[in-house]
């Protein structure tokens, strides 16, 4: 083989020629596959893996109860005498009405048998609980700023069933804090409860930027 021939042969196998052969399309295709797959992983699979679900111990009907009580939400989620907020009701409150089965519902029957009769507290899962590093006072928001429950909690009072409680496997926090939209997009005030969401509202209300007691702003208002 002459030297010339040799050069031709090697040119035929050069990468440049491969591109011309259409392998560039292959490379691009692979890029797209990689992109698409990872987008699916990132947007669809990851959120599914990141969050786990639990069922609430008892399926509570807010609508039904709301129709029976006189004071709306505060009938059960009340402020204690010392100004602290009671949160989810304890068995003692439920027993006031449910010492025995009241209605027809199987769920109520189960509740009375498994919890009331055995005097076991219902381990309610709290959707809206802020992380431990956050100091949040219901009294400051509800009593002083006169906010309603819906602004932060949405229309929970209008639900007939309790939705599953979703929590982050890494942090253990309720999904409601980050928001159900994995991109963190929100449409309503109650969709997400991260620090930015607190800040957003406080920015709007210039007169309520800081602590109720000290009137000061800063990290220590919420992070004690």
């Amino acid at each position: 083989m002459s030297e010339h021939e040799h050069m031709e042969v090697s040119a035929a196998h050069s990468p440049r020629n491969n591109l011309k052969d259409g392998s560039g399309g292959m490379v691009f295709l692979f890029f797209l596959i990689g992109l698409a797959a990872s987008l699916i992983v990132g947007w669809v699979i990851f959120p599914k893996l990141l969050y786990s679900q639990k069922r609430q111990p008892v399926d509570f009907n807010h609508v039904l109860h709301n129709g029976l009580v006189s004071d709306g939400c505060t009938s059960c989620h009340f402020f204690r005498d010392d100004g602290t907020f009671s949160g989810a009701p304890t068995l003692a409150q439920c027993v006031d009405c449910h010492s025995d089965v009241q209605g027809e519902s199987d769920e109520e029957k189960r509740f009375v048998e498994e919890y009331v009769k055995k005097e076991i507290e219902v381990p309610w899962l709290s959707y809206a609980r802020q992380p431990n590093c956050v100091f949040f006072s219901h009294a400051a928001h509800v009593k002083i700023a006169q906010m309603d429950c819906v602004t932060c909690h949405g229309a929970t009072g209008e639900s007939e069933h309790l939705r599953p409680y979703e929590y982050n496997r890494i942090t253990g926090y309720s999904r409601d804090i980050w928001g159900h939209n994995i991109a963190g997009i929100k449409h309503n005030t109650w969709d997400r409860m991260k620090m930015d969401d607190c800040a957003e509202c406080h920015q709007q209300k210039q007169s309520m930027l800081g602590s109720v007691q000290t009137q000061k702003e800063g990290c220590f208002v919420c992070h004690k």
Partner: protein
Amino acid sequence: MKIDRRCFLSLAIGAGAGIALSPLPWKLTDDLAIWTQNWQWTPVPKRGAAKTVNSVCTLCPGGCGISVRKIDDRAVKIEGMETHPVNRGGICTLGLCGLQLLYGPTRVKGPLKRVADRGKGQWMPITWDQAIREVTEKLSAIRKSGRPQSVATMSGASSATLDALLDRFGQAYGTPNTIRFPSVDDAYHLSVSLMSGGKARVAFDFEHAGYVLSFGAGLLDGWGSPVRMFKANALWKQSGVKLVQVEPRLSRTAAKADTWISIVPGSETALALAMAHVIISESLYQAEFVESCSEGMEGFKEFVAAKYTPDIAAKMTGVDAATITMLAREFAKSKRPIAVCGRGQGTIPGSMDMFMATQVLNALVGNLNQPGGVWFVTDQTMQEWPEVEPDAAAKAGLAYPRLDGAKGMVPLKRSLPNQFVQAVASGKDYPIEALLVIESNPLYTLNDTALVKQAFSKIPFIVSFSSFMDDTAAYADMILPNPVYLERMEDVIGASGFPYPTIGLSQPVVKPQCNTRHVGDVLIQLAKGLGDTMARAFAWKDFSACLEASLGDRFKTLKKSVFQVDKSYQPPAPNEIFASERFSFIPRGIQADVAFKPIAAEGDTGGYPLMLMAYDTMRLSNGYIGNPPFLTKILEDTVLKNQDCLIEINPKSAKAAGLDEGDRAEIQTPKGKALVRIHLDDGIMPGIVAIPRGLGHEAYDVYLAGKGINVNSLVGSLSDPISGFEAAWGIRAKLSKA
């Protein structure tokens, strides 16, 4: 179309781009950051309704009121009770740490029975029914075989009703050996009885005193009611009341006093008597009181003039004669001066000479039962229970002498645990076949631990009622755990050194956290199981009913108010309390020489050039209650460094022994030896070394076991010749480099 390496590179780039465009990395970063804030061991305050429950602290004889903050059913903070007259809102470090005793890992969770050799720490959980059945069978067998006297109880309980219940148990069962742990209060009590006749708790109106002279009492180191003493000291500082501390070592009290007199240990009585001599010879005493309310002054005057002039005392005490004279004049000329004694925290009663010499000084200045003086207080009493009717077996057992030798010497209930263990160890009189240990840890707290262990090894059946796996519980055959103080109801009568009659009822602050039963309830159940006269003597349903029987109408009100105090209490006027018997400068029936003879420390000066003393600190709980972890955490590293106990020594003495700061050394006394580290301190007299009380536990948990050494194991036991109380205040020792 070929798939080659570039395709995979491209795939990776695409994947990377896709991931970056998805929320995954950003969310993960956020979540990981949050995860690091949520370590499972990070303490998180409980949520729930806040509530405060008032009670009485029984961790020491201080009798403080406490307010326990609870969130739902979890106690989260103990604070001093604002309205309680003893501590008025204050609390001590031990009281603050009480929650660690309640929720800590050292608790005995339910009844246990030993399975391997004694002290090996191998236990089998048993039911309460089995536990009570087995103890009942044992006690029943001993009683049936005609040896009820061979059952003994040792109790450090603070509840007066429980105390009475234990005595009743002894009465009905037929054993004279119901042993209680005496303290400085008992020694004071006895001094009143010996010098003035009658019975009274001795207390001090420190809040109104004008001058305080303390012979080694650790007034700011946990003596009496510690929180009250801190408050009193603040008052003294405000109003310029002088505090003089006589002590061989610069304790916290000495450091905070206006004058610190460094004295040869064991010679405090000589100083007090020399002061008395100056006061008498210069006619500085309160003539009116001495003439109308006392007797024996002449004899006493001659005694001190012959044996305790300032010059003689200077040689004994190391305090020069001019200082003694100055001190005597200052004391006698001050308004409302108080002399007080009781070494350290006063947990060990001490020798009677010191108490009587102190009372002599108080009598000379006429400051007995005066505002700002020493008061003889009569506390509220319990209601009488129906008499026990001992059967023949009980009568036979009760006819035996008490093993501790305390009998009928004075009209007081006296117990001598030190002499009890000596008798058991030596096998004197008769053996002990079963021992019930209540709220006490004799294997740790009594001097000469080796002897105590020897005595205990001779007792075939030991039942501990301890709430904790303490040194004695670890050596028992069965543990029937008592609830801790925050879980039970008990009466507390009087507060150590507090001048007003008080009565408290501690309240269960939380539900019992473990499978425990109150020792009072167990005693009642045992008595019922033993039947006949025993059952009749213990007819109450439970301990609560028994409390009601002893408190009567007060039971219901105390359940609400927690305490009652008689603030209008006035001590009896001098001519009232001494109406039948005057204050006697030399206790009646005792020679002055004997009454005021100090106790010499054990060991010869030749072989043991140094003197070892134990000292008390607020940061070490040294009795039945072991140090909670928080308290150990705040111990200075001049007291405990890692696992090593530091021994305080004057640089001069250390140099003589060739030792320097931080050196490891071996301390040896006639009773034993131990490894320590050297801590040089100018605040301690040359020739003396000091080790804190409260370290060196063998049992408990990793927070306490094996830390430092138990000074009680190095100090022998010496009985006071008059009272029989433990009187050893130190022991000769030598140090060598290790």
